[in-house]
């Protein structure tokens, strides 16, 4: 059963069509990879899904509810959580607080309760704290919970960003180029981590350039080029597809392969 479905999602910036009538589905508990050359519209597409852009036309359905054009914070509340291509952790605050902010929309603590029902308010905040600590333990950042996010190693910041996204108990997790700037060892760790998350029941969409990473991680891959969906298939099929090779490597290079 698909948990996310897009119908002809299009995003125009003036005369430029960044995303052109993309139809796709994400199935429950799978890792869907989206690949494509630079400027293929992958990130724009994700931004249109998560409410950072409003799609120019087309529809997005999440768990059978239409979420087209909702503001980002509402989409997050519905259960789609994401990370960013250019790393957007909250750098001047602690690791713990970063993840607690990620859990924001799952902390049921109305403002007046702070003063009128302080005990309940404190209890709820404490429950969130325990949940976040468990999450940090799971990714191995628990000892660094008081460290400022900007003082973490780059790879750890990437993990922290994913952890922050996970704190909102998302039904769908979107990772936008999680490997950017990582060395191959960090990449393998990340691949294992992403697969572990899937095995724990998460549904994940990954956008990435790195083919090695995508081939090991993805259950299914969508290739985008020039804003449109170009191919869809298993990693095996995509790897052996001559057209995809042409898109990626250019005509002659592909023939040499």
């Amino acid at each position, binding site marked *: 059963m698909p948990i996310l479905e897009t119908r002809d999602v299009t995003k125009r910036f003036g005369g430029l069509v960044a995303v052109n009538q993309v139809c796709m589905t994400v199935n429950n508990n799978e890792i869907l990879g989206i690949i494509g050359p630079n400027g293929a519209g992958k990130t724009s597409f994700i931004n249109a899904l*998560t*409410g*950072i852009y409003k799609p120019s036309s087309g529809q997005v359905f999440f768990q059978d509810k239409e979420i087209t054009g909702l*503001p*980002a*914070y509402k989409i*997050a*509340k519905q259960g789609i*959580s*994401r990370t*960013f291509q250019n790393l*957007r*952790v*909250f*750098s*001047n*605050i602690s690791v713990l*607080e970063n993840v*607690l*902010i*990620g*859990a*924001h*929309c799952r*902390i049921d*603590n109305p*403002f007046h309760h*702070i*003063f009128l029902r*302080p005990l309940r*308010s404190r209890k709820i*905040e404490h429950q*969130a704290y325990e949940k976040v600590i468990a999450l940090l333990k799971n990714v191995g950042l628990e000892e660094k919970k008081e460290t400022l996010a900007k003082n973490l190693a780059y790879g750890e910041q990437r993990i922290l960003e994913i952890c*922050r996204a996970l704190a*909102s108990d998302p039904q769908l997790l979107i990772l936008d180029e999680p490997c950017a700037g990582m060395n191959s060892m960090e990449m393998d760790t990340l691949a294992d981590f992403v697969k572990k998350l899937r095995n724990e029941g998460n549904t994940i969409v990954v956008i990435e350039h790195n083919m090695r990473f995508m081939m090991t991680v993805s259950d299914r891959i969508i290739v985008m080029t020039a804003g449109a969906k170009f191919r869809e298939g298993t990693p095996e099929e995509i790897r052996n597809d001559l057209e995809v090779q042409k898109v990626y490597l250019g005509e002659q290079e592909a023939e040499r392969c």
Partner: protein
Amino acid sequence: MDMSFFESKMGRGLLFGGLTICLLLTPTFVTDIYILSIFNLMIIYAILCMGLNLILGFTGLLSLGHAAFYGIGAYTTAILMTRFGFGFVAAFCASAVLAMIAGIIIALPTRKVRGDYFCLITLAFGEIFRLVATSWIEFTRGAMGIVGIPIPKIFGLQIVTETHFYYLGLGILTFTYLTLRAITKTRYGRAFIAIREDELAADTMGINTSIYKIMAFSIGCLYAGMAGSFLAVYQTAVTPSNFRLEESCLMIIMVIVGGMGRNLFAPLAGVAVMTVATEVFRSTAEYRMLIIGLIMILVLLIRPQGIFGSSSFKN
């Protein structure tokens, strides 16, 4: 200096208890009315700066019009008490609420306007307030100000001497601190910080950034209204010159020098340094501002995050 002792739970408790006792006993040791009046002035700025810290230090909104909300509080109390026979408690509450409502209205544009442009809106509002207070003579009595504000009574208790005002101010300051601490310890405080750090990321964490910005701004203004109300009964007079742009800037300087962000007490260090400096160098007249400017530059060079600050100002 080894700070670890003060960061431990016992150390903090001792420090806190000691400070509380000192603050409570101040009037018994300080018998000089002049010095006590400086303490009262500091309390007013402390309330203002704690509120401003929520706006500037937590949420990262630069407000150049904080004095206007302070003024709204002061004028509300002055007018209600002199013309409508309100008691102090009622006028105090009305001042706080009115300043907060004004804060909500001014913060509404943050939905569309951000950064420097929002700063300009607050600057313009501050000036509009001052001009209205100066020019609407029938209502505010213009530059002469409203005088003869009655002696405040709280549940039959008359507040007359400097010492009385000291305890009243301390009470309001304690209220400010306790409520702010309760708010900032929950997801609301964290949401404000998230907005300061990265608004787009905050949005995708499920934080309705527009509402939260309005919330932080108007809560900060609520305290400014309280401080204004206190000023009105303390001075027994309010004039537009109490609420000039210089006042707004001074508050921002105090918050930055003291330190913005998580540590709610940090801005108070700025309040103390700046108020004492202003008084000590009073005799040097115009050169005073030169010296104060120098102090600020020195603090920012040596400790860019402020005396007790944890996070430096971004953007």
